[in-house]
């Protein structure tokens, strides 16, 4: 069982992370590096505005047409010989995958990088079925070795520095001595994986773009483990969220360009792999069976609401978390959710329910750094504000938009804001309030509160601006 933080203990998790100098330093260094990389390939704000507006338009079109595109994708995939499965929940998805593996008498599963497989808890589930499922992506391999979960959606081991990784390898990989030479460490990973790729009978991957027009699964990577996973084993299972469907093949180049530049500061990844079917009769390699599993798991809840639907435009580039001052300081694990950072805050309430993630939408100063770098212009701060509204909703008989709606409502807080609003719409009362506050400012007792733990209390003026201007006439 993998060590896991939970979103319900977000406040404790983040306090712990903030106090950990190694986490603070590792993440600060990593985020600075990734932001600098992004800046070299996206230096021009005006040009990025143009391409991100295009990305936004493409995703909006594909989302509006999603039901039709999902059916088209299924038809095209089937025509190509790809089996298509639909899963409403994580449990259905793991069951489907288990059944496929069992039907093929699979025993050695190799996995390419896929956040959706993390979402459904696939590794743990398969382990319980006594099926070995080994991560082949270097970062995921490191994380699996350490019994952890990924802390970033693109660079899973970003929370570790090279010394920590060297120690881990020396401790857990047989025959390996401690070295911080990165090339040597990578060589270890390569050698460990090689036999695995050879022996695996099932390869499981994610999907970056699923093209409805042609029934094509597009996967991007630098290492080659994705191609290995989807080429060598006899059965390939691809798992994706339903929102990853794209209408036309021609939609891929502009989105691909935005994805690689935003994620790792690359013009393009080493490999762009486009799969449109299993091994044909005259072909000599490639999986003989290809399966595509389409997962909902709450995405349809976001879809039903026009504003929240924009959450599904995400192409999983990770730029938002690289830019986020909160993520930089607390790291990825503190969120306790599969997807951390700004995107994690807005998608997790749909995947696991607002009642289990209600501290996440408030854990933001709404600074907008995420929105500024999002390649598909997701209005993350606005969606966070909207999720706060949903969290505080009063229970009513109206149809619920979200699971867990109102789960964070505090009677006292709601009453407080009602009172405050009452004063704010009655200027005479408001003036009276400020008069009392300014006149009585020296009487206000200083008491410890979340502000004063680290900041001095603001001091009120002797006379408000309003009063002074009234006196001037």
């Amino acid at each position: 069982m993998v060590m896991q933080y939970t979103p319900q203990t977000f406040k404790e998790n983040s306090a712990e992370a903030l106090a950990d100098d190694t986490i603070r330093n590792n993440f600060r260094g990593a985020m600075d590096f990734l932001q600098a990389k992004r800046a070299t390939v996206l230096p021009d704000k005006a040009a990025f505005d143009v391409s991100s507006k295009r990305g936004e338009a493409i995703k909006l079109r594909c989302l509006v047409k999603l039901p039709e595109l999902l059916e088209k994708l299924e038809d095209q995939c089937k025509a190509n010989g790809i089996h298509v499965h639909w899963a409403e929940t994580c449990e259905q998805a793991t069951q489907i995958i288990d059944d496929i593996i069992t039907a093929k008498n699979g025993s050695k599963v190799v996995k390419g990088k896929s956040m959706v497989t993390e979402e459904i808890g696939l590794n743990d589930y398969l382990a319980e079925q006594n099926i070995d499922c080994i991560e082949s992506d270097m970062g995921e391999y490191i994380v699996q070795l350490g019994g952890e979960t990924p802390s970033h959606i693109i660079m899973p081991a970003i929370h570790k520095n090279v010394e920590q990784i060297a120690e881990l390898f020396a401790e857990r990989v047989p025959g390996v001595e401690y070295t911080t030479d990165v090339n040597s460490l990578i060589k270890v990973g390569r050698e460990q994986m090689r036999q695995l790729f050879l022996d695996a009978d099932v390869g499981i991957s994610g999907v970056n773009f699923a093209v409805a027009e042609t029934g094509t699964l597009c996967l991007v990577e630098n290492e080659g483990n994705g191609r290995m996973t989807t080429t060598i084993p006899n059965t390939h299972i691809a798992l994706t969220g339903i929102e990853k469907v794209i209408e036309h093949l021609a939609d891929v180049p502009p989105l691909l360009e935005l994805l690689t530049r935003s994620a790792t500061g690359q013009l393009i990844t080493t490999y762009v792999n486009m799969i449109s079917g299993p091994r044909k009769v005259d072909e000599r390699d490639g999986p003989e069976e290809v399966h595509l599993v389409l997962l909902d798991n709450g995405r349809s809840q976001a879809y039903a609401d026009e504003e929240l639907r924009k959450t599904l435009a995400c192409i999983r580039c990770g730029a938002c978390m690289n830019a986020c001052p909160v993520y930089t300081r607390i790291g990825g694990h503190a969120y306790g959710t599969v997807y951390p950072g700004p995107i994690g805050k807005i998608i997790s309430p749909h995947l696991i329910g607002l009642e289990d993630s209600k501290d996440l939408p408030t854990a933001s100063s709404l600074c907008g750094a995420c929105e500024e770098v999002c390649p598909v212009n997701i209005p993350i701060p606005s969606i966070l504000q909207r999720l706060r509204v949903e969290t505080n909703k009063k229970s009513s008989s109206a149809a619920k938009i979200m699971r867990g709606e109102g789960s964070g409502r505090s009677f006292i807080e709601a009453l407080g804001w009602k009172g405050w609003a009452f004063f704010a719409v009655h200027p005479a009362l408001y003036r009276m309030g400020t008069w009392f506050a300014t006149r009585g400012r020296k009487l206000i007792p200083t008491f410890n509160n979340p502000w004063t733990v680290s900041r001095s209390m603001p001091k009120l003026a002797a006379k408000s601006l309003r009063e002074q201007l009234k006196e001037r006439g």
Partner: protein
Amino acid sequence: MSNDNTSHANSAKNNILQRLALAGLDANDVAAVKGKGSVDSLTLLVDEPAVELRQSFVDKMQASHAEVIACVKTDLQKTINDLLVRKQFKQLLISERVGWVKDMDIGDTQCLYFADNIESFKQQLFTDIDAAITTSHGSIADTGSIILRPDSVEPRSMSLVPPVHIVIVEEQSMHPNFAQVMKQEQWQTCMPTNMILVSGPSKTADIQQTLAYGAHGPRELIVILVAAV
């Protein structure tokens, strides 16, 4: 052996589609987004001189640690010969498309073809093959990418498993960008089982963001860039 015909699976599909229908989007909404963001409505399509395309391709390939060896068509065989003599591979995987390699004098290098199927060949492919030579479908200048279109003659794992991949790239099939080659060749009408863009040897920066080459794919990519004249 799929279960996408069972009633259970159908109900999952129907449930999902029903939930999506709660959004209340209709034909008007669909009409309103027609063509939005599409490539045709933009000035992505460029017309750059071939010499600039070539330079961009070479620069990007070299920046990604690929080795680029330029030659003209009439010198192709000699160029490959010299390369193979230099490298002295023990086992070299080729295909009928470069059958002439078999006849070269390259010392102790053993040339072989891919077996009838990977199942009978896997161990050797993984353990003993040092390098493979393939052709390519074309290239893309702005990202420094090679288009591979594996087929029955040149299976996918040729360009993936051996630690060294030597690829012949014809300059006359170089395109300015991905969108353009896709449009020009109408890829949406003829996608094969597998198509790949390769832009360098394999690499990773997963260890403290430090770049290292030779992850799981080939650790060396040698590009033979062939000019028409």
